[in-house]
């Protein structure tokens, strides 16, 4: 079977875009884990809410992409803040299973409330760009995908800047690296945790809003993506942000390549197989538990 170079390139580009989206989700998860030592099972729902926010904001804003994106992100961050203040703030760091079950319950509630109100009918989201795209040779990429990728990259750049250069970011890294020491220095864990959750929600909101014009929006959309994000966080090393990004992009590419040549089932299985292999060889993940190293 001769492999069409153009086809491969198309797959690769798709894989990169997919990987960036995965990275947005995985980084948020890693962030929350690093700061609070809990795995947020409702993370996928934050993405879904971002997508729905985008779906509703667009018509209101005359299908203008950027204002709708901003609105969606802000709305998701607000929801993240509410979730933190109502529920997550009550969880202690040593209660791992309890926090899973709480966020699982939350996830169930959110999905089914959304389904109850909006039904499971998939929604098509239209933007000012429609289906227009850019052509490179015989490869076609829609603007929405390009913008999605660009926005993701911008978000990572911004995240890097925040973690490296702001007080707020440094506090998060301190807590992730050495909780006791950070507390002794006077860093307030509740404030840092809240910031981390809101930030992670923002990243999810961005991911959801970016996906909305590309895929169909349903209440279950977060669920399909989230379990891969979990696997990515494990593969990359719990709490390790660069690790999560590398793993995410890697997965996006691998899935895209496999999906292009083999059956869908293998594409989905690949993340699981990779995860098991990685755990077998390197139980702590491919990169060590980073405590949010930023480079």
């Amino acid at each position, binding site marked *: 079977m001769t492999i069409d170079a153009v086809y491969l390139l198309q797959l690769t580009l798709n894989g990169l875009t997919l990987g960036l989206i995965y990275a947005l989700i995985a980084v948020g998860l890693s962030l929350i884990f690093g700061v609070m030592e809990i795995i947020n099972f409702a993370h996928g729902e934050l993405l879904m809410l971002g997508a729905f926010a985008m779906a509703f904001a667009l018509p209101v804003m005359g299908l203008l992409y950027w204002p709708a994106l901003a609105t969606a992100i802000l709305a998701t961050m607000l929801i993240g803040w509410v979730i933190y203040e109502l529920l997550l703030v009550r969880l202690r760091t040593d209660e791992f*299973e309890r926090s899973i079950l709480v966020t699982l319950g939350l996830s169930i509630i959110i999905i*089914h409330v959304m389904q109850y109100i909006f039904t499971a009918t998939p929604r098509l989201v239209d933007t000012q760009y429609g289906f227009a795209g850019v052509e490179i040779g015989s490869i076609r990429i829609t603007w929405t995908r390009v913008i999605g990728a660009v926005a993701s990259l911008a978000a990572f750049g911004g995240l890097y800047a925040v973690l490296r250069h702001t007080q707020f970011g440094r506090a998060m890294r301190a807590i992730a690296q050495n909780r006791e020491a950070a507390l002794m220095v006077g860093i307030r864990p509740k404030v840092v945790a809240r910031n981390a959750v809101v930030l992670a929600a923002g990243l999810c909101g961005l991911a959801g809003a970016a996906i909305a014009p590309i895929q169909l929006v349903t209440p279950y959309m977060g669920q399909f993506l989230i379990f891969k994000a979990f696997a990515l966080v494990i593969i990359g090393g719990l709490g390790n942000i660069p690790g999560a990004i590398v793993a995410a992009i890697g997965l996006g590419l691998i899935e895209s390549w496999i999906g292009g040549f083999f059956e869908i089932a293998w594409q*989905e299985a690949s993340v699981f197989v990779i995860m098991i292999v990685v*755990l077998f060889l390197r*139980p702590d993940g491919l990169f060590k538990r980073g405590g949010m190293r930023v480079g």
Partner: protein
Amino acid sequence: MKSAAILAAALAVALVLGALPLLTTSNYIIGIGVSALIFTVAAAALNLIYGYTGLLSFAQLGFWGIGGYTSALTVVTFGGSFWWGLVWAALINAVIALAVGYPTLRTNRHAFVIVTLTFALLVTLIARDWVGLTRGPLGIPNLPPPRAFGYSFDTTAKFYWIAWAFAVAMLAFLHALCSSRIGRTLIAIKQNEPLVRAQGISPMPYKLASFALSAAITGAAGGVYSFHLRIIDPLFLDFYYMQTFLIIVIIGGAGSFWGVVVSGAALSALPEALRFSADFRMIIYGVILVVAMFVMPSGVAGWLRERKVARLRQSLREALR
């Protein structure tokens, strides 16, 4: 002796439950009885790995599904009997649990939870997409009733007795296991693993055995349930089942054998009562989960135990004065 009294009571209740089809002719009620029995077994298996060993495993859903499909395929594709289907359901799941458990249990608890969740989701995808094996979204309908020595268990009432015998056998086994030294070691591992190692016990074989046993039992339960439904399809792997098992364990009290059994019997009627809207039922499940985690994280049994301990503390304090 207190435990002898409890066992005697349990035996009495079991006999009464066995007589259910004689007490009512409503297939609806008997059907609920079948669900209650099977869900209780699955919950008890989850209790073994989560309540006793301290490992939150979402893989149970995967084992349940694999068990259901294995039994169905044994009968329909390979021409075996229902009974062999159950045996294969148990064995195959045990082997899978060992294969998945070995790399995962060497890491940490976080990884274990995530791997088991991913596993369950993967099984769901395979059920839907590997059409050659599982017949895809259409599933395998018209599963024949179990037969033994020429006798056909073709009514709900007759099937009830299979479910009853299965439940009694599985729960008896689990009870024996949980009250043995092995059960005690699992509890110790859950509470303080470094201490267990310092006392000469290697935790890994215990964790693996617990995982494999809970997989086998859950798989067998899935096998029985698929024949109760008379059809198996990807809906069998709906997360709803995992939630049901989880809520039974949490409300009853993770780590309490009888707490989970009683909870299983009581709550299995719940899905039926909440049948009015699938979404609403799930919302209630979610709310129960969240509220229970804050108000009664150790379930009813745990709450009762804590009160007993508080009373003990109080009386000891008074004795010292």
